[in-house]
């Protein structure tokens, strides 16, 4: 019995992708050049998207690739233009308490994973009650092949209306904080108040 038949391919891909995720997270922590940090952040999102594809969650993967790797990277880059290129070096004195907090939170999260159902468990709460109803009834109720769209736009249409309103509220928030002056065209001069 050879090695590859013991570990199936998708588990192997999972392990490789997750190790790369860990590596890029560590790289983000270590790096000080902000441009590189943003770029590795994009790589992190792309790896997550590949991981989601391997879990058969194509809709989530698509969203992660478009939003996480695509637009967030671009928005962070355009935000980067407003600040310095390099992160300032940290002082070592205050880093013990945050480390303790991170350690405790991480252990609690790891402890919580023992209560999670196995991947693909047919008896898990997500796969039994309302989730099963959606899969069984979409063909009869809605008639669209993609169950995710049926749930998002039709069964949970009210939630999605709320989400759209949240997106609008976020946009309005940014406009009110940064950009109400931009209706008269882009700001080209240097503003004294910006140099705080």
């Amino acid at each position, binding site marked *: 019995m050879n090695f590859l038949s013991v570990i199936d391919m998708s588990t192997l891909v999972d392990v490789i992708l997750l190790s790369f995720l860990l590596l890029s997270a560590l790289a983000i922590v270590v790096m000080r050049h902000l441009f590189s940090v943003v770029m590795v952040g994009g790589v992190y999102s792309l790896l997550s998207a590949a991981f989601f594809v391997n879990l058969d969650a194509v809709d989530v993967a698509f969203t992660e690739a478009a939003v996480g790797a695509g637009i967030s990277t671009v928005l962070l880059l*355009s935000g980067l233009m407003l600040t310095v290129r390099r992160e300032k070096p940290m002082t070592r004195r205050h880093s013990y308490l945050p480390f303790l907090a991170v350690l405790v939170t991480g252990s609690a999260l790891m402890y919580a994973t023992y209560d999670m159902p196995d991947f693909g468990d047919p008896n898990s709460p997500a796969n039994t009650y309302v989730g099963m109803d959606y899969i069984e009834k979409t063909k009869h*109720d809605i008639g669209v092949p993609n169950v995710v769209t049926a749930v998002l736009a039709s069964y949970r249409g009210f939630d999605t*209306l709320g989400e759209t309103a949240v*997106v*609008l509220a976020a946009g309005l928030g940014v406009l009110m904080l940064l950009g109400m002056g*931009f209706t008269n065209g*882009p700001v080209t001069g240097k503003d004294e108040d910006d140099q705080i």
Partner: protein
Amino acid sequence: MTPHLVLRVVTKTLLSPIILFAFYVQFHGDFGPGGGFQAGVIFAVAIILYGLVFGLDLVMRIFTPRVVQIFMALGVVIYAGVGYVTMYMGGVFLDYDALVPHDTHHAGQHYGILFVEMGVGITVAAVMIGIFYSFAGRNIEISDEDW
């Protein structure tokens, strides 16, 4: 000779496929993966890419800040409007079956999802472009030496 010639040519070549793909994701969302959120983001990426390469002034001539502001709200209005139309047609809020009553092929659901996703896409795209404008519009043009 203009700087970044390769960047400009590649951007101009990529622009229309990206926008086409956004529309594909938008209108094919009930058959394959995707929908309004993803399509809106992809469309915004095309516009932002144009803005990054060709400058904010040019892109603001196509999508003026005023238009972006209006479209931000318009998406939500379309979405909620579908809900009010279904109420007017005799159903409850966002009950798409009321759009085409007594249809066995779920035409009402298809129309409802189509318009609702369109609202989502318009709002998401406009908000993303608006956030990009407000970030990019704040600073002076950055010189090549700084990068």
